[in-house]
């Protein structure tokens, strides 16, 4: 498996949805290719870091509106 093919399969590999034959080819490639190990590591790090993003700035007006919505609901 060339490196250029491997980089297209990483999400399927990590999700466990890669067909067995492709998974074996990919894992055989990783035994011989440090840059692709680094690539997959970066991919995992990208996913993990995205999980630490939460909220972009929620404008104060939006927060106020929702707080009002909550209080109105409570009062009802």
């Amino acid at each position: 498996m060339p490196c250029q093919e491997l980089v297209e399969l990483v999400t399927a590999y990590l999700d466990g949805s890669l067909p067995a034959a492709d998974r074996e080819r990919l894992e055989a490639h990783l035994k011989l290719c440090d840059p692709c190990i680094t690539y997959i590591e970066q991919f995992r790090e990208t996913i993990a870091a995205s999980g630490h993003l939460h909220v972009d700035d929620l404008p104060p007006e939006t927060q106020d509106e929702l707080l009002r919505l909550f209080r109105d609901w409570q009062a009802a």
Partner: protein
Amino acid sequence: MASAPTLPDDEQLVRALRAGDEAVFMDLVRCWHSSMLRVAQMYVPSRAVAEEVVQETWLGVLTGIERFEQRSSLKTWVFRILTNRAKTRGERERRSVPFSALVTAEAERDDPAVDPSRFQGPDGAHPGGWAAPPDAWPQEALLAAETLGVINAAIDGLPEAQRLVITLRDVQGFGADEVAELLEISDVNQRVLLHRARSKVRAALEAHLG
């Protein structure tokens, strides 16, 4: 970007909402609202309408919380209410390009995960092997606020359907099956869109950290 509140488990959340705990409600808003807005925008023609849909969803959550039976996670339940409302609203006020057409267009476009110039050409010693291999990233920089800002900007810059799928999968932590079901897209398209989105975010991080 604010730092995220840590949410308690579903049982405590549901109990707190039923008891009228304002602080818990606002924590949920801070954790989910932006992602909900991204979802709604895929179905309706404008940001203003999307904001209305998300507000209606929050109200639906509050009025429905007594009846919520916890057969799914609270978050899945909330996002289902959201997609149902957004779809209904979208049938009345259509987007110029429907979501399903966007998904197909983005999934079918030729869109390599890594710039082809990073690989050796057909005349190289190893065609398709790395010509410019990636370097490992400094761990301490990964969770720096600045790095998270780069990720956020990269996600904002993605084509719409890719932005939506990565927001649900990697930012909000929904599973592959849940996302395919919520958005009514095929498993294959879910995966293709996610892969393209992650590949672009990785490239943006590499440009920043590398």
